[in-house]
Each structure stands twice: as C-alpha cells, then as structure tokens.
C-alpha cells in the first residue's frame, strides 16, 4: 500500500523497479477506468517530478515533459506547425480534463480514439522512456502503441517525455475532429495534417494521420506520397489511400460511415492546413 509522489526521475524509477505500481498523471483515464473497483495497492504519481511539466525547444526539436497537460500546450508559445496539436488540445474533453490530462497519459492509455495520436504521428513524435533496470530508450510513436490499449512499455519503464524532431520551417498544421456533440465527446474519427507548400502553392511535403478508424491511429503514407505537387484545393482521396484503415462499428458510428466521413475530413484537414 502506498502513494508515492517523487520529485526526481531516479526516485520514480526506483519505485517502479521495486514492483508494480499504478502510474498516474492527470488521472483522467485512470479513474474512469477504475469505476467502482477497489483502488490499486501502490500509486506512482509523476506530476511532481522535476522537469516533467516543461516544454522545451532546441535546434533538435521540441520536448514535452510527461506531465505537460493539454492546457499547458494551449497556453504555450509554439510555432505554427504545432497548430494541429493545439487544436487537438482544445478539443480534448473539457477545460477540466485539459487542466489535468497529459499528452503522455493520452498516448500511454493507447485508446484508438486518443486525440493526441494523429497529431503526434503527423509530427513524427518519439517517445522517451527510462527504466532503472533497462536504461533509457527512444521509441517512435508508431511503434510505441502496438494495439488497442497496448504499448511497448514494460512494468519498470516510465515515459519521460514526448519529443518532436526539428520540422521544416513553413510547415503548417491542422486538426479536424468529428463528434456527435460539441464538447466532451470521443471522436468518431479525427485527422491531422501537416503541410509544406512550395512557392507555387502546391504541396511539397504532407503528413496525414487518422485516428479512431483503426486499432492504432495510422499515417496514410501512400496518400502523402501522391499528394506531392498537388494543390490543397485539388486533393482527392481514394479507397487505396484509406487501405491502412480498418474502421469498426460501434455506438458512435458504423464502419461504412467512418470510411465515408474520414475521406471528407482528410480533405478538409489538408485544406485548412494549407490555407494559412
């Protein structure tokens, strides 16, 4: 039994090495998942760890500490390529959820409908992981989340930060979310697009990622390749482009609706990103 709120990574890793503990950051996934079941025996709270709430920029890119909340992201002074991430942050639940919920918690929870996933995939995010037993490692986000509610994290490992490599200057971004009500809504599907235009206004580089249409959010690489040279206003999306997706029927919508809606959503996201 215990509740441990370390202020150093070393202390935190030692706790994890000592035996399994429920890691908690904002608690916005941990508590709803618990429901009426009894509490865990040991808790490791990561929100007091030094540096965990920091967002830092450097020549190599941008680093979001594992306790950075959605509200921190909304308030941060970030270049336009993070507009998609900011837009996603503003769409997460409600102010209350954004004030507590973290980016790291969102990806560790590994929900197919996690709004952070498509934006971070479009930003080529890397997950920085530490462990007292195994040492540190960096894992690309698309390899970090392996399936519905599954990640590569071992019991003794802790996510330290989410890192975004340096991105082409001039790249812009947008995020589109589809839900059945205005706020507090899990996405039916969502799309993130990062776009770099050439001087003629055609796409020279684009990254498109889609969530809630597959067990893990997916980049659409074939679409990305074929869009080079195309103007944002002339984008079309084919069935082949959507082949990485495998939408399912659930209470929010059926598979055929998802496939249909996401097509329009992708076009909108690219156009919005491309008209900055």
């Amino acid at each position, binding site marked *: *039994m*215990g*509740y*441990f*709120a*370390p*202020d*150093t990574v070393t*202390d935190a890793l030692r706790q994890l090495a000592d035996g399994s503990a*429920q890691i*908690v950051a*904002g*608690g*916005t996934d*941990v*508590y*709803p998942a*618990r*429901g*009426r*079941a*009894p*509490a*865990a*025996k*040991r*808790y490791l*709270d990561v*929100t*007091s760890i030094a540096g965990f709430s920091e967002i830092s920029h450097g020549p190599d890119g941008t680093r979001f500490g594992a306790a950075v909340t959605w*509200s921190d992201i909304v308030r941060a002074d970030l270049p336009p390529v993070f507009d998609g991430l900011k837009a996603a942050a*503003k769409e997460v*639940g*409600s*102010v*209350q*959820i954004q*004030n*507590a919920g973290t980016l790291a918690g969102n990806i560790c929870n590994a929900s197919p409908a996690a709004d952070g996933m498509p934006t971070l995939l479009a930003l080529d995010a890397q997950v920085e992981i530490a462990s007292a037993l195994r040492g540190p490692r960096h894992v690309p986000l698309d390899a970090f989340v392996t399936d519905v509610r599954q990640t590569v994290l071992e019991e003794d490992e802790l996510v330290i930060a989410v890192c975004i490599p340096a991105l082409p200057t001039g790249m812009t971004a947008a995020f589109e979310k*589809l839900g*059945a*009500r*205005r*706020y*507090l*809504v*899990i996405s*039916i599907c969502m799309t993130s697009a990062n776009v770099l235009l050439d001087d003629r206004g055609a796409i020279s580089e684009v990254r498109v990622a889609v969530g809630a249409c597959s067990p893990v959010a997916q980049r659409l690489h074939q679409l990305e390749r074929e869009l080079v040279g195309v103007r944002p206003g002339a984008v079309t999306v084919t069935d082949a482009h959507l082949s990485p997706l495998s939408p399912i029927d659930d*209470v*929010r*919508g*059926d598979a*055929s*609706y998802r496939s*249909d*809606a996401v097509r*329009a*959503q992708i076009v909108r996201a690219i156009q919005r990103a491309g008209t900055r």
Partner: protein
Amino acid sequence: MSKDFTHHTLSFRLNQAIVVASPTPGQRLSDVLREELGARDVKVGCDAGDCGACTILLDGQPVCACLTPAHQVQDRDVDTWSGLYRRDPAAKALADSLKGHGAAQCGICTPGMMVSATALLRERPDPAESEVQDALSGVLCRCTGYRKIIDAVMGVPAVTTGKSHGVGSSIPHVDADEKISGDLSYGDDVAPAGCLEILVIRSPYHRAGFKFGDLKSFAAAQDLTTILTAADVPGRNLFGVIPQFVDQPVFAEGEVRFRGEAVAAIVARPEIIAGLDPESFPVSWRKLPAVKDMQSAQGEGAAEIHEGRVQNVMCGGLVARGDAEAALKRADVLVEGRFRSAFVEHAYIEPEAGFAQVLDGRLEVHACTQAPMMDREALEAILGMDAARIRIVPTGVGGGFGSKLDPTVQPFLAIAALKTGQAVRMRYSRTESMQSSTKRHPSDIRLRIGANRNGKISGISFFGEFDTGAYASWGPTVANRVPVHASGPYSVKDYRAESKGVHTNNPPAGAFRGFGVPQSAIAQESLFDALAEKLGMDALEFRIANALENNVPTVCGQVFEQGVGIRACLTALRSAWKRESAAMAAFNSSNTTLKRGVGVAAGWYGCGNTSLPNPSTIKAGITPDGRVVLHQGAVDIGQGSNTVVSQIFAEALGVLAKQIERVGADTDITPDAGKTSASRQTYVSGNAAKLCGTALRAQVLERINVGPDATLYFEEGAIIAEDASGMHRLNLSGMSVDADGFVMRAEETYDPPTEPLDANGQGAPYAQFGYAAHLAVVEVDTEMGTVKPIRFVAAHDVGQAINPMLVEGQVHGGIAQGLGMALMEEYIPGRTENLHDYLIPTIGDIPPIETLIIEEPDLHGPHGAKGLGEHVLIPTAPALLNAIKAATGVRLTQVPATPARVRAAILKGTQ
C-alpha cells in the same frame, strides 16, 4: 522533496484554511472533500469526469475532484463553490446574477457551473458567448438548457417580463438562495459521514438464472455487517406504481429479467465497501436466452417474461372515433410511414441516493424522490409495516423528469435500516443508475394520414408498439396516453389509434416527460409535413388550417368550450417562419456542403392523470407571532413548484410570496399534494393552494370584520387590515394554538374534473390541455451528417404564466431534452451505460431560444394557468426532423438522427 504518503497525512488549503486529511492511496479528492472534510457542496454525478458536478479550483484552475488523486493536492490550494460564494464578492455577484435569471433549476449542477464560471471571469471579466461555452463545457446541466446560465455569466440583464409582483411576475425562485449557495442537501448529502453503506449486486446478463454461494462465510470473511437478499424482504417482495401491475421484485428470485437487476445487497462500513470487489461476490449465473427487441419478444418461442402476459404483451390502449379506414380510403392524398425511437435515459445529474434510520421504532427514509406518498405506500407493502410507522422526507432532488417517481434506493435503505437497526446510506453509481432506473420507451410506430384536396385532414390510423422492458412501471400509462394524444392538437373526425406495451429483457421503461407522447408526435408531425408537401401547401398554414378549436371535439369526443390555444401558438410562429424560410433560401443558394433548414411542429398534452382522480391538498396557517406558514407537499424537482405554488397561495391570501414561510414535503407533516408528474403541480396543487389561500383570507377578514377588498399586513404577533375606513388590528398572541402551532388555518383539496374513457377511448380524460408549437432552424454538414441547431422559436400556451421567467426556464430545458432525443441520445444496455458513451447536450449544443408565451386562459386552471413541464419537449424532435428534411431533402424516420444515420440517409436519398 519526494513524497511517500504511506505513513503521512495530507495537508492543503481548503477554501484558504489549512486542513489535514488521511486518504487511502488512490482515494478520489471528491470523496475526501465530501466525507472527511464535510464539503458536501462538491457534488458527485458520475465519478468519471463526464458531468463536472464535482468541479473545484486547484491552484485557481478548474478540475474534476472525482478524477484527482487526493494526495495530488498536498500543499496546494483547493477552492470549492461554497468557499468562493462566501469569500469572493465576484463569485457572490455571479450567483446573484444566476438567481436573477432563474438559472438554477434543480441546482445540482450549480456548484460546478459556478466554480467554472468564477475561473473564467477572473481571466476574462467580460467574456464572449463562445468563451463562456468553452469555459463551462465540462459541466452538464439536464434542467436549464444552458441559455440562462450563459446569460447570467455574461451579465445580460435579467428578464423582467410580466408584472412586478404577484401572479404573473418573474420573481426569482423562492428557494434560490439555498441552491445558488450550494447549501441545499440532496439525496447523498444528508447522511452522517461514516455511516453504513449499501452496495447492490446486479445481474451482468439480460436474463439469467442465479445461485448464491456461501453468503455467511463471505460476509464473515469480508467483515460485512449483513447481506440482503429476497429472503430479507419482510413483506411482499414486489413493487410497482400502478396497482394492477405491481410486478417488480426488490431482489430477483431465481431468475433475473434484465441486465442491472438487483439480486443482493451488501451492507458494510464505508472502508469495507471501498475495498470490496463486487466481482468477488459469491453468486453463479446461468445465462438464459433473452429477448432484446419487441419483435422477438412477440415471436414464436419467446419465453413469457411474466406469466400470463401472453406473447409478452403487457397491455394496450385504444381511441377510436368515426371510421378511420373508410376516411383513409376516401382521402385524396395519403401518406404513411414507420417511425422508431430508442431508449432515452433521464440522465439527471444527481444519481439516486438516500439515507435511512430507525428512530423510536419508526422508519425514516430521506431520499431524492418525486413522489413521497407513493414511496410510503410501496414501503408499506414491501416491509409489511403500518404506514404510520414510516416517514418519507424528500431531500433536494437533483432532477427527476419522471424516473424518480419509481422506488429505487428506498427499499434497500429501508430493509437494511430495519435489519441492522443502524443508519444506512447509499448512492447509485452512474452506471448502476443508468442500468436500473426507468427509461423513455423505445417506440415502433406505423401511421397513415389522409387529407382531402383542400388540405383538411380526413383520417388518421395509428399503431404504436412501446418497449416497456422487463417490468411494467408506467408502461400502462404510456399505453393509455398515447392514443389520446397521437392525433396531435388537431381536429380529426375519423381516427383510430392503438398502442401496445411489450415486455422485453431490457431495463424497465417508465415515466419520462411526456409519457410516450413525444414519440408519437415525431411520427404524426413528420407525416404532417409530408402531407403538406404532397398537397403543395405551406407546412405551417396546413397545421393552422387543421388546428383544434374551442367547441370542436377532440379525438376522445371531449369538447372544450374555452382554452384551446393551439391556433394561437401556431399563428405566433408565422413571422419567424417567413423570416427564417427566406434566410434559409439565401444561405442555401450560396453554400453547397452546409445546408440550412427550417421546420415546425406542434404538440398538446393533457395535464393530470388520465381519467383518474389525482387530488392535491395544501395546508397553511398563521402562527401566534404573525408568520404565514405554507405546508407544501408538492416536491420541487427543479421545475419550480415551490415558487409557483407559493406565488398562487400568496396572491390568494393577499401578501407577497417572499413573506411566506414554506414547510417542505414530509409525509409526517405535509398533506398529500400528489406526485410531481403529468405536469400537474401548477394546475392541481396550484388550485389547492389558491383555495387554501382564499379560505385563510376569508377567515382573517371575518375575524377582523372587514370587507373583501381590505389589504392585509402581517406583523410580529398581529395582522393589520386596511380598508376605506382605516386600519384594523388583530392581536394573535392571545389566540388559542392548535397542534400545528397555528392560530388560524386552512386546508383545501382540489381534484381535476375528468370522466372515464369508454371502450373506444371516448370521454373526458383531462380537465385541461396545454398547447405548444416550435420552430427550429438547423445547419447540416451534408458531408459529415452532423446537425447543428441554429435557433428555436417556441410558442407555448400556458393559460396564464404564473411566473414568466420560470416558463422560459421550462421551455429551454424541455427543448434541450427534445434536442438530445432527436439528435444524440440512445441508451443501449451493456454499451452506453455511462455519460461518456451516452451523450446528452452540452452547453455548446443548445442554440438561442426565443420563447413566445401565449395566454389562452383555462377555466379550470388557477388564474387560468395550464401545466407546462412535459409539453415543452413534445414538438422539439419533430421540428428538428422537419428542419433536417428542409435542409437536405431527406426525412429521418429513426431517432436519434446521429451523424451516421443522417449521412446514410443523404447518401441513400441522392442515389
């Protein structure tokens, strides 16, 4: 310093005072605040971040206390609403603004709303509407429709429509202060901390046999106080709200009939309940084939859910007048359709909760209820105990909308208190509440309507099946009400409407604002549009041409010589209809993906029970020290009966409502004012209050010996009457005092005049109807299928608005619920059992609403007033569906019209 709380207490600043607490690892902050630190102004509606009722400020930022590990607030600042209200003048001013707008109805969402708004106003003193919506988006309100909350936060001046005082004036709710301050105690707020708790064990299957393991050794091993099962029910293990249909056990015996049905209950100390995994309870299940829809329930081979209810048909209803089939054959134009609707959850923000104790051999149950007297009757039978030994004290009710008419926590509390002899409490979890409480009936309706070439309705044939779930609850009421109302407020000579209540292994469907009428209105009002289109007539003018009028018989053959206000409601929409139709055309000519549409629909609703007595009694008296005390047994569930009944009584007595002291509902004290349902409190209890006030005034006048026009003043120990001849004083101090402490008293009863319906549903089912017509404007994203309501104009005939501000509040709240039903709400057992997956409208989903109050006085109503509570959501859903049709060209025949369904219909329509 790294903190290991294993052996340390927690300390932080709560409302600026340093406090210490000793939470267990992982304990929710909401729990510690409410139970250990007594901050019961922090409400709990879901324990999952979905409702925002538990919102507090953590270092000035709003967060959900139910998602915050208590240990996370070490050395930090926590502010709850009650602290802000008492300390921060800006917060107090905000609360007063809320009161001025009547924007706290049941008040359960108020603390969370106000905490969020306080945080916003500190950063943005003059926020725009969209900023208010963003900031308050995390708090759900099921009562108000949010618009008045937005106005209050933006500091829009409060409504001042109506008279300055008395009946017809927009006085604030008489109980507003205890709600806006967070002081009102709701179902979970009365129990002392630390008292025994109850955890109900429920079926995970729709239908199953079950056997208990060794309950005794489980209880001993887990240190439980006791376990309750069917064997512990002292009286009859059955309850039900309709005498002929009492069919639901407190604890199932041998077999469960729906997912979520109770089989046992654990009674134990709170720390034991907290550490207990319900999965470990010794019960083994044998899953049985279940019927989940009405068709298979009536199909061959389906098991009879209740013995003797053949093919699972519970009962039916019929209204027949003239010859509908012949009229449809004769009709020049005929339309027909099949319309379906889903289970709708009441989703009040306060889950069912209560507290019980045994005092001097008598049982006392405090719970959130809409019907204290019915609770007592139910317990009398379940406990096999004399009603005189049972006292029901309703707590504050955080929304009811029909579902808190049926017993929920009360039997468990009562049995546990009697068995253990100790005080017990319980609060349903959100999932438990959603699984086991009653719902709106899903419907499957087939309707045919004919008209002649001139646009007159010639006949209607209606057949509707309603899924009443595993138990009857109010299903028979729905079956009776629907045929009476399915014509809509129109003149229809040849009519046949048949309804059927069908049992399934779904949760029991019961009373929900409108008792089946919102479902039938969807079918009828949708087909009216189709008919108008076929006839080439304007949809609004078509309705006006067919509207019911005074002296024209209803489909039950009832003739009202006065008070029929539907034509006035419809004509009131004419200018908005023209304006919005033109705006729609202009918008659509310049947009391809987004399309706007305008729709209208109407509705009517009979106030009070259908052809059954439903009296209300109101008692009042004057104390020797000159106070006027009103015993008001009508439970205010947020709809405002405390205020309306006080206003009517005060007017009759000749004083101001604020001078009245109110004694709330309590079966030991207040006479029976009937249940809060069927939109009857303003009309029925209002009439009783008027009679009571008038009788008391007559006594006073006689005693002082002055004429009827005298003005009365109540002073310390005296009444002064002023008339043309001067002031006359009556000293009260010497007068003899009765058992209630009164020197003068009156008690009056009112029962609406109705007549029974014959085999064809002909008769006089209600003494009055209320009428309504709505106009809705929507914008449809045709690529995504999303529907965004843009505006509503709502015309309501309320006879006489006792309080126009409260009328608007009811209209807004009803529209929000109608909108939810139309666009997003669908309860699916096993799948949408929480407020994460079951969506109700948020503050961003309700557009501006213009309320047009129509006053076509009713002879029977107090001051001409009619009921309103249920009428409001009847036209909303069909108005929205008609607007979607106007926008897209496609008609949705199934609600909710989710984005997936709308898009599918568009794709099908354009093929």
